[in-house]
Every structure is written in structure tokens, then in C-alpha cells.
């Protein structure tokens, strides 16, 4: 019996602020395409990465409507990565730090992520082949 590789990523950055979010999602995407199981522990601003109310917008300064602007929303990337993981037989278990969610009013996430606590991070790390913490500073 082969054991599926399991990785844990710890995210801290809010979306739209730093390339760390992009790099983290790229790592997650690669792992999902490989069929790995990936645990994500999102805390502080990162609980807004899968926030359901992110919306595309026009850009009046550049004279572009919503379609032309084609503004990317990380919630869509998260959903796509979760779907890809499922297609490949893996799973993304995305835990949102509950206290961080409450502080920020970020409870409305897309389907998939679940509420948790730092205790979940301990369980993730213990059950993973590796853990990468991507800190803000």
C-alpha cells in the first residue's frame, strides 16, 4: 500500500498585499496536481484568502469594464485548487483560525475551508510529511 504524501502550509498574509500569497497558492497548486493531501492553516489576514464576498470590479481610471479588467480573486484560485486536488484523488483540508475569522468578520468563506484553532495546526504538523510556515515578517 502506498501512502499519499501530506504537506502542511501555514499562511499568514491577507490577499492582495504581498507576493507571498501568490507563491503559497502556486505551491498548493503544484501539490494538488500531484495528488498530494495538503493541509492549510490560515491565520491572521490569510483568513480572507477564501473570503466569499471578494468581487471583480471595473477600473474606471483605465476605462475598463468588469470583463476587460478580469480582476483575479484568490477565492476562485482556492476553489480551483481544491477541485483539482479532488480530481487527482487528494484533498485540501483548509482550516481557518476561528479567532482570526471573528476578529475580522471573515466568516463567509467559499465552500471547503472549515473553522478551527491552532490545535488543528499541531495535528496537521504531526500527521504531515512536512510543514512550511510562510510568515508575514
Amino acid at each position, binding site marked *: 500500500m502506498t501512502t499519499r*504524501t501530506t*504537506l502542511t502550509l501555514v499562511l499568514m498574509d491577507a490577499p492582495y498585499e504581498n*507576493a*507571498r500569497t501568490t*507563491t503559497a497558492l*502556486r*505551491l498548493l497548486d*503544484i*501539490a494538488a496536481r*500531484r495528488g*498530494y493531501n495538503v493541509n492549510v492553516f490560515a491565520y491572521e489576514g490569510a483568513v480572507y484568502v477564501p473570503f466569499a464576498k471578494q468581487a471583480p470590479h471595473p477600473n474606471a481610471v483605465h476605462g475598463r469594464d468588469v470583463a476587460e479588467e478580469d480582476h483575479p480573486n484568490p477565492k476562485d484560485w482556492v476553489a480551483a485548487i481544491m477541485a483539482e486536488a479532488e480530481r487527482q484523488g487528494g484533498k485540501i483540508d483548509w482550516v481557518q483560525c476561528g479567532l482570526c475569522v471573528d476578529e475580522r468578520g471573515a466568516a463567509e468563506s467559499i465552500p471547503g475551508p472549515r473553522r478551527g484553532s491552532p490545535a488543528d495546526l499541531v495535528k496537521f504538523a504531526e500527521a504531515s*510529511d*512536512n*510543514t*512550511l*510556515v*510562510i*510568515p508575514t515578517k
Partner: protein
Amino acid sequence: MAEYLLIESRDPSEADVGYFYELAAGLAQAGNRVTLFLVQNGVFPARPSAQSHALGRVAVSGVQVLADEFALRERGIAADRLLAGVRPASLEVAVDRLAAGCKAVWH
């Protein structure tokens, strides 16, 4: 011997990356297998410049220094004109190292 994956996301003009380079070199000199993977603005010193000396020293210290191809393209840095000892690489390599259980540190 342990295996380490050190991921540097910052460039010398925005942060003290020197201690992270020294950590990489020190781990290699202690007999460990070390990969220093440059991502985001961390790839800037891979372009030969006045800020490349410290990275150049790491690249000849037994550390494998890789630069994220995506980050290089984003910044218009030609992958065939990198500092000696620095190679372009896919981010897949970082995932390979993580899956292999390398001790991983992000800066």
C-alpha cells in the same frame, strides 16, 4: 547529514538577507545538503549586480542555489544570464524537497 530547503523571498535592498545566506552556507559547511531557493524579490541578486556578492559567496560554498523561473520572468531577468552558481528552476523543485522531508525555512 540533514537536508534543508531555505526559501528566500526578499532582496538585499528590502531586508537583511545576509544572515539567511550565512545560515545556508553554515549548514552546508557543517556537512548538510542545502538548497537555497530564491522566490519573488529574492531573485534580484541572482542578476549580476553590486548586490550580488553575498549571494555569489553562497553559491560557491556548497549550497545549491536555485532561482524561481516564474519570478525571473516576472522581473525580466534573463535565465541564461544569472550569477555564476545560480540556476533557474521550477517551483516544482521546492515541492519535491518538501515532499522528501527537507527541513524547510521561509524568509
